[in-house]
């Protein structure tokens, strides 16, 4: 049985690794590095980093209180709210795109003029990435030992002090892991962005959009951007592992549940 499992695992690993490895083998590393100097790639990198940082700032500002409330309160309809938060995880990006247009489009519910601007990119990235952060953050806050919170309250700490001095430091590893996941997902965002923000170099053309624009024009530039995104994502996911192990070693102080 062990041999059979090992064989199946080898096939699975090869299948998952092959396309990623192939990106790096198609042309020489020197070519990849050289092609990253292409203006399209460089502009897209700047746009991607800028919009991702802004989107994740929004996700942290609004997502952290949301996650804290959902983690520390039990009320009717809570599971519906949590499901709503999680929904973008499984929605096809195209649905997110038409949803954002229907909500924020010029002819949409709120009738904003965000479409085709960097704001639209930020919103699209925040929409698809937020659940990764909020979900992980809920789990992180839930794993904070309630007896510590109760003890702090008994000793006279207010709600804000409990949040800032107890819950936040204990959940920090989980929040960091969630942020890294959200960042990785946001960097890869394509469908909602191209529908809601369009694609224009130096304005709304993020790295994935640049791959799409370049793959027939200049395949090597597309490959180079692909390689860059693989490297980013790999680093971020590895960071998640470290933060998680930090969270688990941190759980010596808060041994209730783990994520």
């Amino acid at each position: 049985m062990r041999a059979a499992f090992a064989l199946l695992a080898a096939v699975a690993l090869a299948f998952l690794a092959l396309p990623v490895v192939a990106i790096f083998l198609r042309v020489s590393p020197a070519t990849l590095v050289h092609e990253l100097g292409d203006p399209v790639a460089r502009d897209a990198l700047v746009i991607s980093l800028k919009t991702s940082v802004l989107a994740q700032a929004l996700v942290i500002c609004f997502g952290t209180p949301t996650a804290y409330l959902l983690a520390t309160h039990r009320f009717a309809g809570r599971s519906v709210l949590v499901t709503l938060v999680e929904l973008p995880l499984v929605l096809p990006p195209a649905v997110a795109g038409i949803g954002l247009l229907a909500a924020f489009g010029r002819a949409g519910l709120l009738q904003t003029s965000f479409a085709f601007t960097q704001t639209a990119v930020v919103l699209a990235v925040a929409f698809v990435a937020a659940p990764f952060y909020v979900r992980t953050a809920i789990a992180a806050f839930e794993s904070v030992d309630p007896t510590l919170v109760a003890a702090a309250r008994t000793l006279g700490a207010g709600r804000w002090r409990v949040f800032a001095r107890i819950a936040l430091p204990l959940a920090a590893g989980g929040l960091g892991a969630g942020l890294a996941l959200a960042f990785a997902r946001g960097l890869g965002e394509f469908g909602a962005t191209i529908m809601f923000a369009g694609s224009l170099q130096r304005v709304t053309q993020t790295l994935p959009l640049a791959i799409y624009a370049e793959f027939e024009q200049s395949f090597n530039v597309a490959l180079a951007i692909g390689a860059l995104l693989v490297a980013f994502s790999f680093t971020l996911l590895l960071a998640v592992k470290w933060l998680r192990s930090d969270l688990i070693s941190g759980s010596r102080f808060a041994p209730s549940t783990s994520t």
Partner: protein
Amino acid sequence: MKLLAIFAAASLTGVFPQIDKAPRYQFAGSDQLAFQILQGAPADVFAAAAPKYPQELYARGKCWKPVVFATNTVVLIVPRANPAHIRSVYDLRRPGIKLVVGAPGVPIGDYTRKLLAKLKLSSVLGNIVSNESDVKFVVAKVALGEADAGFAYKTDVKAVGSSVRRIALPAAGQPTVQYELCIVRATKHLQAARAYVREVLSPRGREKLKAAGFGLP
């Protein structure tokens, strides 16, 4: 007839199934389709909105000699409500206009740039808010009212009806828009592919193309 795979320009989405609804169609930007055929996609017939791509495949030995089967006209479209009050192509010079066009390399994108260059309006390119991958996306974003204006084909306006308005363009700027189709050399259904091309070129095929607003060579 075998189930053919026809790779056709997005602007043929409406008319080709009217000529023959049997084949499997893939409609997209001609540049994308040509790229897919070069990568070995199993197309039997390739119909493009510009001679460039069929000719390129022909030169590389990937398809038989292309023939011109239709022509089209580039038009300027605005949403029905015309939020930016555009009355002529020269209004596109106003700063802040949200203009949506085809990306460079996509036939409608290249025609648009040619037209603007002819009219000495290349500065208008500064008002582009998005480069779309085929003409249908241009039309959709104008029809939704998200963009102030876009360049598409006359035949697209017919297809979306009253959600967009057409703004007349100076005839001097009009580029030559020719559609070419070719049989892909790798086809396993040569007879059927030939029959399909004959059908498009037949009086009935021409009738359908004309009814959809295409010009005939």
